[in-house]
């Protein structure tokens, strides 16, 4: 019997204290906030970008390379998505972090250090990006989307005041377009004023543009094939929202807004899939998802600016003020100012609005 008691005592003693915490206290206590890190930067953002300008896509071998910047992007509306823009006195870099709600962890104005060793500097259609090596070879960089990988490279520093948006002129944008990749304007939080709806004679061959959307007839088939893609560009097609959630898109689709679009070889009512007998439109409908939409604006000297809004943004279905669109033929929309992250896309200016309050009508 004694022995049994000894065994019992031993068994209880073997139990770790850890497992008794919830039994007795049920309290884990309050948690401290993050401790702000302080690292010494070894390079500026401009120096980082210069590496790309010099070498092209580059996996950074210098394990000690650290850049420092303040957070200027805020993804609370979901329009800026999976990118963290940080800015120092020499420019901005977009860190490709493949998670949503980055503003939960990285606050506007907060200092961020990036340990660049092992990361890859590259670009996407002219826009500088810092990510990891894309081993598929499809893009120049890939997302950091594992929290451990992110935390090892993106270090949170002290909180600070948010950087106010920079008012940018048409001339500055023209100049930035000329310089391209290394211009410090790209990625900045800016306010562009005097934007009017529609874009005449944009940078390339487009004659006159209102919106641009790209639909995949069957997203599980080859997305790069022109027979699986439907472009709707130039006119408005009756789209009056900044973008389209899945349901809003279906509303437009069912109202016949996109009936005049088609793939490279088929119209909307042609049979797309012989096996199922679905037409292009029916297949689009069956695979409907939110649609990212670009609205074209132009500045007084004619520089086109695309305001590009994600279909997953919370304000995707927000109506654009009818006065802004105006009478399309008369091109008499009222001017606006818009605040967001300015980027370059294949030699064109794009603006990603922060949220629905980023647009002001100027009358």
């Amino acid at each position, binding site marked *: 019997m004694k022995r049994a008691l000894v065994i019992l005592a031993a068994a209880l003693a073997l139990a*770790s204290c850890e497992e008794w915490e919830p*039994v007795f206290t049920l309290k884990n206590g309050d948690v401290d906030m993050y401790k702000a890190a302080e690292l010494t930067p070894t390079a500026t953002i401009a120096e980082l970008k210069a590496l790309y300008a010099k070498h092209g896509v580059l996996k950074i071998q210098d394990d000690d390379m650290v850049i420092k910047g303040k957070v200027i992007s805020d993804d609370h509306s979901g329009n800026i998505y999976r990118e963290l823009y940080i800015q120092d006195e020499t420019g901005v870099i977009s860190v490709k972090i493949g998670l949503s709600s980055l503003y939960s962890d990285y606050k506007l104005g907060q200092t961020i250090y990036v340990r660049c060793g092992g990361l890859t500097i590259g670009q996407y259609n002219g826009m500088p990006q810092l990510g990891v*090596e*894309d081993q598929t070879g499809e893009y120049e960089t890939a997302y950091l989307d594992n929290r451990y990988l992110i935390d090892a490279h993106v270090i949170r520093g002290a909180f600070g005041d948010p950087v106010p948006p920079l008012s940018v002129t048409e001339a500055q944008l023209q100049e930035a377009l000329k310089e391209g990749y290394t211009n410090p304007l790209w990625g900045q939080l800016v306010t562009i004023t005097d934007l009017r709806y529609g874009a005449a004679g944009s940078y390339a061959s487009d004659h006159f543009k209102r919106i641009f959307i790209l639909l995949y007839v069957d997203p599980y088939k080859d997305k790069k094939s022109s027979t699986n893609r439907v472009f709707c560009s130039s006119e408005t097609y009756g789209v009056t929202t900044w973008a389209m959630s899945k349901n809003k898109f279906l509303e437009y689709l069912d109202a016949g807004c996109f009936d005049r679009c088609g793939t490279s070889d088929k119209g909307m009512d042609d049979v797309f899939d012989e096996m199922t007998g679905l037409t292009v439109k029916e297949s689009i409908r069956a695979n409907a998802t939110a649609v990212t939409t670009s609205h074209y604006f132009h500045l007084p000297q004619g520089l086109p600016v695309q305001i590009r809004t994600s279909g997953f943004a919370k304000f995707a279905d927000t109506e654009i003020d009818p006065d802004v669109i105006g009478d399309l033929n008369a091109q008499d929309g009222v001017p606006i100012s818009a605040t967001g992250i300015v980027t370059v896309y294949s030699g064109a200016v794009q603006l990603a609005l922060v949220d629905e309050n980023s647009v002001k009508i100027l009358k």
Partner: protein
Amino acid sequence: MIKKLTLAAVALLLSLGLSAQTYTGGVRGTVVSRTDRAPVPGAVLVLYQGTAEVATVTSGDDGRFLIEDLDNGIYDLVIQAPDYLETRVNVTVNDGYVKNMFNLSLTRGAVVSEVDVDNLVEFDMDDTGYGDSPTVLFGQNDVFNNMAGYNFSAVRYRVRGYSSESQDVYLAGVKMNDAITGYSPFSLWSGLNEATRTKYTVNGAEISDYGIGGYNGLTNLPVNALSVRKGWRGSVLTNSQLYRLRLMLTYASGPRDDGWSYAFNVSARLGGNDWVKGVYYRSFAYYAAVEKQFNDAHKIGAVIMGTPGERGAANSSTQEVYDLIGDNMYNSNWGYQNGKVRNARVRKTHEPIAILKYDFTPSHAFNAAATVLYRFGKNGYTALDWYDAQDPRPDYYRNLPSYYFMEEDDYNRLNGMKAAWAEEVWRKDLPQYAHIDWDRLYAVNKMNVEDGARRSKYAVQERRTDQQDLNFAFNFKWRPVRTFTLTGGADAKVNRTEYYQRMDDLLGGDYFYNMDSFAERDYAAFPYMTQNDLDYWLANGRVQKIHVGDKYGYDYYANVRKWNGWLSGKLNIGNFEMAVGGRVGQTAFWRHGLNRKGLFPGLDKDGKPMVIDGRVVTTYDENGEPITSYGKSKVARFLTYAGKVNLNYVLPGGHRFYANAGYFNDAPNFSQSFMSPRTRNQLAPELTTVKTLTGDINYQVSSNGYNFRITGYYTDIMDQAKVMSFYDDSQNSFTNFALTGIDERHVGMEMGWKIPTDIPNLALQGVIGYGEYYYTSNPKMYQTIDNNASIVEGTYGVTVPYWKSHPEPDGTIARHYVESTPQLAVSLGLNWNWNYWFVDADIDYFGHSYLSMNPLYRTDYATAGPDKEVTPFEVSYMCSQEKFDPSWLLNLSVGKSWYIQRKYQLGFSLNAKNLLNNTWVKTGGYEQTRIVKNTVAKQMFYRFDSKYFYMSGFNYMLNIYFRF
């Protein structure tokens, strides 16, 4: 006692009514334990002549019994006592003597009935459509169930492959299976082992005195004061599988001279275990009963019992996670907060049961009982909740190496660098990433200041299922003549269960938005549609802010009404007995929404469509009915009935042959009948009753230390329904899935034995359960999008073509089996007893276990893939059902008790399970209802990895008890 016996004799005389002759013969003896010759008090002895019951007595404190006034003849005496196997003895009464049988010994059943009824780690199965309740009850008298109950529990064995709902469990004559889910409700009294030790069980389709029952046996726990062993009993128990420490104290007065008797049982179960981190117990239990015998005819009793407390739950993960972290018992539910372990999934319950029971026994030929039982209180389950934030679950599939790199190029997952980073998390078991990072959740909430207060992005919700369950049951037994017995009764149940979410912890924040994040994805520009409480939004013009203790999310009543009437007649002719019984009743249930959800506002209070911002927001189903979250749904009503026949033939020497057949037409459960009960009143289409046809034949012998039973059974269960909700990648949306017309067949045998050997004190024991449980139909499925209740074309009202089987490329047909129980289970063992010592050693084998299937993989959609072409390879790949590896287990139990001054008993038992420390034994799991769709070749889809539960490795339980 004497009174009772006299009464019995009088009743006997009356019922026979043949002559005025007074019999003087009888039988006496002492019931003792075969193990140690200790007297067994409270054993129930039923004397039969042929199959006709002649008398029933209970052994006294000293194990003695006496049955008098017997005619000359040959009788069969059947003895039952808790913890012992049933035994049968032949008795010959002649020349009017009272025959002394001296010691009648009972063989102990599995000595480990100390195990909790919830003897397995609870897994968090929310929304998976997967249930994990074992169905074997501990401490039964039956030789098969007794051993299977203990030895097979580790692998979640289900008797004959049946689900938990099919097992009827009664408390004081009231059916306690959950009104909403049908599950057997053992957790309501876990920790009250002493109070619930006495049980009366019938197997398969036998008819019980408490009801017609179903096809998977019926167990009644009387729980009255007199059913508890007289005296004090205290025990201290430690085990390594569930909790460290159990303390239990019990007292029962036994029958007192003044007619009163009372009993109580309290316990505490505390601490963690060796195997699953984050799982802990902080559970208490109480039971108090009082009973008063007014005179011979009237007895009234009251019971109150409950098990307040909380326990941490485990979670299942994929094999990838288990392999990387090197532990099949990894639990993703916990993480460190301030360096201390915290579990996100905690079950918090306190559901008291109050019982008032009246027994009426005017004569030996008639007895009746009426019970009122009320179950109430709270039943909660905490879970992480988040809005506007990243998924905090550590084993979310995007956190695993396989999300970044797969050998098979077709997945287009080529990033070895990212995979290496992800792998390091698991290989090194980095606490911040391989477990919930509570510190981060707090930091995020604290940093998220809006309107001068901290809006929580992460929170802990409590999902409540608060029942109010009022039951009335009446039953009677009437034996007008010795050869005929009529039993019958009626019962009614009124249940109102409130399902709601309650804010449990804001994790350092001040409030949480009452928004539907899934709806927001589709309807961000229509704020009214994303409101969980539209009425609040309309009244206040803003989203509701939730504070700790507030209800939010969903809130509805499940209302259930049931009544039944039943009757059975038993005819005894010589050694032959036939019983026929039937029941008829009605089940009705409906949902009553208590909040108006933005997605499904329904009609306004005047019965008109609702209009917000000039838009009509009321939506309608395909029948033109408004889809509503608010108010009362249609009432689903079902006529239920059942019929049974039992045939029984006994032979001298304790042999018994019997056969049972039954047909049942039962209502579906509320939990499987609404498309999406959290959001709307919509009933699943084509709801119908579940039809079951069953038959079994049995041979049993229980005599002189020999116990043996063999059974063959055949059961068809038809028209079952199931609903599930999950995130469906093929729809990019949360969807609801209803399956109807699921048919199963269960055919097999079970055999159990305990046989003395030539070596003194050594017995051979064993059980074999072998069956084939498989699906026999291809059910219909109905898929709707959760956000708008719209029908999904192609998967609504169509047959799941590969549910019951699928063709293999070689042309053979692969059958699909009923999941999550071994269809072959064998236990062989030795039992040795000497001088109050016992040793039990068993080796167990389990095979033919299958993984639970999801219907999505068995559809044309999934097998066709992106190219819409179904190939034999795709069918085989998508539709195959995983069969688990067979496993071996070795168990050993030892125990000893001491009598001190013949007054006190001190003893211990030590059970060591899984001595081989096998940690690779899968006990269940399920397929994730998700598909990998973005492939390179665009020809086929891939499955997501399945999730598994494992059995824990070596574990022990030491129990030390003291009785006086």
